[in-house]
């Protein structure tokens, strides 16, 4: 399946990936990020149960320096 993550297209991803699968595939530390899926916040508690769909648009954020 294909996802758009932070504006970039990721093709050829396995189907039926959970959010947790995707995060470990991308090597991202779950505790330090937050995810928005198709403009909806994904609660951390549901990472394991949410199954991503082809065409999902994800934003994955973290905290950086700012004023």
């Amino acid at each position, binding site marked *: 399946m294909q996802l758009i*993550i*932070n*504006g*970039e297209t990721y093709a050829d991803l396995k189907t039926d990936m959970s959010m947790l699968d995707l995060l470990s595939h*991308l*090597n*991202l*530390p779950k505790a*330090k*990020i*937050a*995810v*928005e899926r198709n*403009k909806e*916040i*994904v*609660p*951390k508690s549901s990472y394991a149960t949410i199954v991503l769909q082809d065409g999902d648009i994800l*934003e*994955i*954020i*973290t*905290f*950086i*320096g*700012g*004023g």
Partner: protein
Amino acid sequence: MAATQDKLIIAGREFSSRLIIGTGKYETYQQNADALTASGADIVTVAVRRVNLTNPDEPLLVDFIDPKKTVYLPNTAGCFTGEDAVRTLRLAREAGGWDLVKLEVLSDPKHLYPDMEETMRAAKLLIADGFEVMVYCSDDPVFARKLEDLGCAAIMPLGAPIGSGLGIQNQVNIRLIVEQTSVPVIVDAGVGTASDAAIAMELGCDGVLMNTAIAEAKDPILMAKAMKHAVKAGRQAYLAGRMPRKKYADPSSPLAGLI
């Protein structure tokens, strides 16, 4: 001493330092962490941005400044509409798990003045969504009053444009805002050096928020220390109550009994 119990209370949370520092523009996160220690601040502002997917091993702010020990105040810098601000802070709340936030909705990149119409709209949306909103605003007492009436947790007027280091440009307005406001008033933006921070505190502000004044000093760690002292000195001078200004000299040594 009374000053040791003089806590800053925002939305029911107690802080011992009245200095809030930013985490932008430092050479490294390590330098930022060292400046934080030197400043004694309890709160840091942080920005919310996309993670670097091409280099997930890139150092993260949370690896240097522990969010369990220092309160992260996520900001909405870079947001130009109320909806952008709300979207950003909802993500921040999920990442951090806390609801104290800094709302700033900017307008023209040339002066970075807050867009007060959008700021008001975003503040309403965020408060309705359960956020405790510390709001960056112009130094206009009328808007400051409106933001307080909406239920903002702190009113944060600018002293001068963001990153300008010009100091408190309109002391009269800051003082008016302080006098009329019952939630904390924190000067946010415009501080250039220690005396600017002291002036803000002497005007009766509850705190000062700064980023560039420390990050772009030649020695940020030393400046962070200076700011810690300036904020304390200004606060104590405010609590002590300054002497009246007089038009003419008044000798400190008695004139009577001269030989």
